[in-house]
């Protein structure tokens, strides 16, 4: 394999970031789209099932207050008459009012069960059913680019483990900041729950370890490696550096976790959404002029129950909110066929009813940013999805 000058440049760029970069041999390249735009697509996967009703509360819905009365401790930021966003999403709200952000509400994949692994596999693989873990829709899109159309490297996966979204036959870069890896603050509470059932000895040892700070528990937003603020902004900054390079990648995927808020949801989402919002701000500033050509799509495997549970949280649900932001987004609107929250209108009498298939959003972005062909989108990139039309008009 010979290194082209552009790759050497990329390596030294990445070295300057204090990061590790992995290469594959034959990396497919993506042509500059017709016209002046040099589009970037960043897919953020939120693992754990984001509560769409908390992230983008439908404050204008007459049945919302009864479901969530007193749950949020700080007033949300209004978007329009009907919808608001969580107060931690201040930058997103600003982008919305500047016409550079949109919410896609009551959206979901085709998956109707409630397993995180299976839901994430469906979300990321692009298949309508779980069990497909070899490749993701975005990677297959890159792999489908014909050689003569392509002129540059195209994919970069952020973080320690490339999200399934960008895994597959097409070689992509991997980028991860050199910092202690994100500690999963959610592990210790779950482990404690498990120990408390049958193992009082280990439960006691774990409690003591948490109490004395030897094992991290919870997301505080203060400590390093907290799976939150610092990790999200570091990743956003690093990916941005790569995405603005003349010969750099144009497509990125990254996953953040911690969103499975079965308990103490209000406090946790305050922190987690603040981290996500800081990542949005970091992308915006670090991409510089490239921000005007960028779309960030934030998705999650499913939503959460409409009602609160007994531990100040929510359990696994179905429809949720997805976010679009970036200079290329035709924003300033909430895209939703809103089903309402009356009990009869809830999915299985418990969850927000899905009315938009998120695959349509992904397809629409690929068509309008990268001239993807609908036929391939319906068969290879999102198999068995002929009935799901690409959503048009997402791009400014």
């Amino acid at each position, binding site marked *: 394999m010979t290194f082209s000058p552009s790759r050497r440049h990329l390596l030294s760029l990445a070295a300057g970031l204090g990061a590790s970069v992995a290469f594959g041999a034959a990396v497919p390249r993506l042509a500059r789209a017709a016209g002046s735009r040099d589009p970037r697509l960043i897919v953020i996967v939120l693992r754990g099932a984001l509560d769409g009703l908390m992230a983008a509360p439908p404050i204008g819905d007459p049945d919302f207050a009864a479901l969530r009365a007193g749950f949020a401790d700080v007033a949300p930021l209004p978007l329009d008459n009907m919808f608001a966003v969580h107060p931690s999403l201040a930058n997103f709200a600003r982008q919305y009012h500047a016409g550079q952000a949109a919410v896609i509400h009551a959206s979901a994949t085709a998956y109707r069960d409630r397993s995180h692994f299976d839901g994430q596999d469906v979300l990321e693989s692009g298949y309508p059913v779980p069990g497909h873990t070899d490749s993701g829709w975005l990677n297959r899109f890159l792999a489908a680019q014909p050689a003569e159309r392509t002129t540059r490297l195209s994919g970069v996966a952020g973080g320690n483990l490339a999200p399934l979204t960008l895994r597959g036959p097409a070689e992509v870069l991997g980028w991860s900041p050199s910092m202690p890896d994100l500690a999963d603050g959610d592990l210790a509470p779950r*482990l404690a729950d498990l120990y408390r059932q049958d193992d009082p000895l*280990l439960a006691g040892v774990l409690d003591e370890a948490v109490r004395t700070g030897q094992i991290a528990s919870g997301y505080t937003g203060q400590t390093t490696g907290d799976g939150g603020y610092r990790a999200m902004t570091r990743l956003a900054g690093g990916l941005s550096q790569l995405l603005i390079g003349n010969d750099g990648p144009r497509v990125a995927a990254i996953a953040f976790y911690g969103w499975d808020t079965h308990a103490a949801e209000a406090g946790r989402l305050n922190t987690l959404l603040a981290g996500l919002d800081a990542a949005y701000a970091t992308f915006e500033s670090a991409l510089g002029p490239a921000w005007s050509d960028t779309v960030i799509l934030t998705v999650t495997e499913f939503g959460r129950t409409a009602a609160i549970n007994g531990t100040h949280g929510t359990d696994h649900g179905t429809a949720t909110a997805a976010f679009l932001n970036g200079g290329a987004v035709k924003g300033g609107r909430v895209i939703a066929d809103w089903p309402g929250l009356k009990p009869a209108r809830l999915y299985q009498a418990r969850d927000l009813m899905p009315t938009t298939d998120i695959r349509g959003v992904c397809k629409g972005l690929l068509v309008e940013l990268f001239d993807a062909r609908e036929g391939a989108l319906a068969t290879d990139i999102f198999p068995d999805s002929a009935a799901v039309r690409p959503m048009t008009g997402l791009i400014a």
Partner: protein
Amino acid sequence: MFSVADNRAAIAYARFGLGRQAGGPEHGDDAYIRLLQEIDEGSVPQPGGGALPTGADIFRRIWAAKAAFKQGQTGPDTNPGPGLFLDELDARYNGTMFTADTGLTERLVMFWTNHFAVSRDKHAEINAAAGAFEREAIRPFVYGRFFDMLLAVETHPAMIWFLDNQNSAGPNSKRGKGLGLNENLAREIMELHTLGVRTGYDQADVTAFARVLTGWTVKYRDSDPGEERGGFAFNARMHEPGPQTIMGRTYDEEGFMQGAHVLRDLASHAATARHVAIKLARHFIGDTPPPALVARLQQTFLDTQGDLKAVTRALVQSDEALAAPGQKLRLPQEYLAVAQRALGLRLKPTTIQRFLVEMGQPMWMPSGPNGFNDTVPVWATPVSLAGRVTLATELARLPAGAPDPRRFVADSLGALLSDATRDAVARAETRQQGLALALLSPEFIRR
């Protein structure tokens, strides 16, 4: 859901082995039979397949490095110890432990290495040669005779050096004017290696035994007696002449044979049989070893003149072996191997070393000749658990085809999997979290 046979197999595997390998044979009735076959076959693999250096060779290299250092010649190979240690770790954790079928033999090697413990933190020689000690003095004998292991251990340079016997000389020996008597080796042989504490020997016996052992040394200079520099040598000029009386028996043999006879008698003593039985039962079965089991193992030891194959078989076939799983915590050194095998993950030796240190059981580095403590409370500590959490989190994050955690936990635990663990793993937020929960579940930490 799981048959009784599956349950027995799973218990036996966990209790006596190193857990199931990724892609290895299923749990099933014949898993238990394979344990017994492994004992009968009695073959013990050599880490590094013969390519690792001998203890004597290592001692010579360390002495050469020390001499070079004294003369101001420093260089990358100045101290070969650290590199050797990593090679030894690699040869086991990525070698013999990783590819073992049940892991019983490796568990036995770890047990006996801890019973006849040396510690790397005492001298550079031991730091470098602890692995060689295990390969040469422990491994060949785990299915052999206790006396043979005992003799190999007490004549190994690493043990002699560790217990300060290399310069021990009898007061009436030719070297007695310049050198003094050291009782360390004699005491620890009686107290730790054979009879056990307070079993009828007194200080006079220890001193007499120490005199017997004078001259059991390591050849250092070319002019010293002995075949190979760095290897065991009996130095008659250091040996206390004359008969010695130990526990009522008089030993009037000459030279080296005097000590060999004492060791033979210690090896066949009822107290030794009991001591070994208790330690085996405590390690494999429970902190309070069942008295009936101890008695049975002790009797087997005595009846077979210390045939460790027979004793091991008696242990594995006992009723207690298949009862009440989960009484013990997997020691950190075991736990790491179990996790690696379950995930099919080889690791860098420096990573292996780091995990063992963080969990509190650095390889071949106990705080004393009594080895690492083998009871649950000592390992049920926040520090050790935090080390396991670190290990589980890091291993769960390593790429290369992370398995579905739901399948992983069912495959690796078999009939031992509890509903609580299965549900916790299924509900995890990410695959990585699911794998970490599986690795930290009570069924994985305990055996």
